[in-house]
């Protein structure tokens, strides 16, 4: 498999406060890769570093080319970032949110994609005129995912999609992500506190500890790993 994304010794800071010290990771085409870790381990910052929402050092390569831009450039390079806390435009309607997902596209298939996305989320079609802020938390998370799909991303970044959602909704969310990965070859880098669901949904995973990669392997390997079990899976 081709390497889609490569981070080499990436560090990042918020003003004077360092958040990432040394993160190297690889995401290959068609993979679902999970990043696990405790609160404050740098999971969210890793995604922000990739999409340029935080200033960073080290090398980030997208399909072998160095990527240095900010979020606007990341969106144009095919990175769809679904931030923590859903990140929908609450004042805009469902349809407007979806159209914004396709903002960087110049092709004429946006309308067709609106229908394609509706295959995964049938409820969105009849509620297109509803303000996103009036949706439930689970629906907003689905909308955020649908909006990301509208950009036809090469790489989908998901930040803590399980946060604040009922277990059933989380399972449904990851079921759809899995289906997108299998059917459409969507490449996903997902950051999750819920290690159990993240390991079940991913091919490979990285464990972050205080801004560094502490452990990596296939998701099956990590599930069997003693320290991962004790620290993140809790049995």
């Amino acid at each position, binding site marked *: 498999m081709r390497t889609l994304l490569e981070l080499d010794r990436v560090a990042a800071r918020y003003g004077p406060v360092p958040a990432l010290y040394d993160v190297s990771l690889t995401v290959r085409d068609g993979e679902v890769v999970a990043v696990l870790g405790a609160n404050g381990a740098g999971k969210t910052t890793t995604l922000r570093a990739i*999409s340029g*929402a935080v200033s960073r050092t080290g090398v980030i390569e997208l399909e072998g080319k160095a990527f240095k831009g*900010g*979020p*606007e450039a*990341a*969106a*144009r390079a095919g990175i769809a*970032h679904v*931030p923590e806390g859903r*990140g*929908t*435009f*609450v*004042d*805009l309607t469902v349809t*407007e949110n979806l*159209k*914004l*997902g396709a*903002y*960087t596209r110049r092709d004429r298939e946006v309308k067709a994609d609106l229908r394609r996305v509706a295959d995964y989320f049938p409820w969105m079609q009849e509620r297109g005129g509803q303000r996103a802020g009036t949706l439930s938390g689970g629906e907003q998370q689905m909308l955020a995912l649908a*909006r990301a799909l509208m*950009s036809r991303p090469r790489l989908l970044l998901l930040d803590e999609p399980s946060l604040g959602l009922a277990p059933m909704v989380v399972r449904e969310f990851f079921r759809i992500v899995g289906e997108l990965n299998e059917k459409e070859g969507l490449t996903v880098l997902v950051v999750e506190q819920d290690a159990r669901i993240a390991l079940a949904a991913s091919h490979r995973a990285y464990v972050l500890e205080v801004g560094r990669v502490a452990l990596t392997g296939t998701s099956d390997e990590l599930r069997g790993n003693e320290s991962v079990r004790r620290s993140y899976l809790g049995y």
Partner: protein
Amino acid sequence: MLLASEFADFMQQVVSGLASGGIYALLALALVIIHRSTGVINFAQGEMAMLSAYIAWTLMTNHGWSYWPAFVATLAISFLGGVVIHRLVIRPVEGGSVLRIVIVTIGLLVAINGFVIWKWSGQPQQLSSPFGTSTYEIGGVVVAAHDIGTIAVAVAIVFLLWVLFRFTKVGLALRAAAVNPVEARLVGVRVTWMLALGWGLAATLGAVAGMLTAPTVGLDPQMMQAVLIYAFAAAVLGGIDSPIGAVVGGLLIGVLLNLLSYSSKYGAFDWFTEELRLPAALLVILVVLLVRPQGLFGKPEVTRV
């Protein structure tokens, strides 16, 4: 019972109130656009409009342009001017305290006023109305052509703006950038350019307001100062973040002030003279802020913890 002549008189006041209200609405819309995206009241909005009116005037008087080409050119110049003001003056102080931007807009107010007096002197000038000085009689109601034209232009501009925001991709991006700049960046919207575009649009709206105001009150460096207060009142009354509110608020303020003056003719509110129009507008601002801070169409502010 109202006599026919009294009714005609009343309607006349309503129509001329709608005309001035249309101007307040345009300027209030400009304030709303900037408030939504930048989070501040642009105190220089009136002076920017006044400068635009001077540009139209100088194109016609000193360069021999005819009205409508000068009108369109002024809109284009004002649009670019708004973009440049955002890039050069506002953007450097963005991101800090809101007070910094407010102070810069007040500085801009003084600077533009000073520039106009320096360049064209403070002497009042004549900017003609493209609609002439004739009057029409419709069912006994005498209305000025300029008032009808003003209402028509205001309606057309509001309609165009509505189409832009509601049905175009750039309008959607403008709204997204205003309500949620961080997310907007993530979907690829170039937010700083959208903010500049907002300033350009606001300057263009102001230019229309300025060019429509000058024919009735005379072109001079102070001409937009009262209009800006009425526009404040309109924006606050309608809800400072609501474009529809700005339009309704503008029309209400225009008609209300005219009817107060009108009723004094018939003994009611006979103490209400021209001099009280501005204080009345300020009273509207105060009462709305105390009783219903979000205005007629605004959403109540919710502070999340």
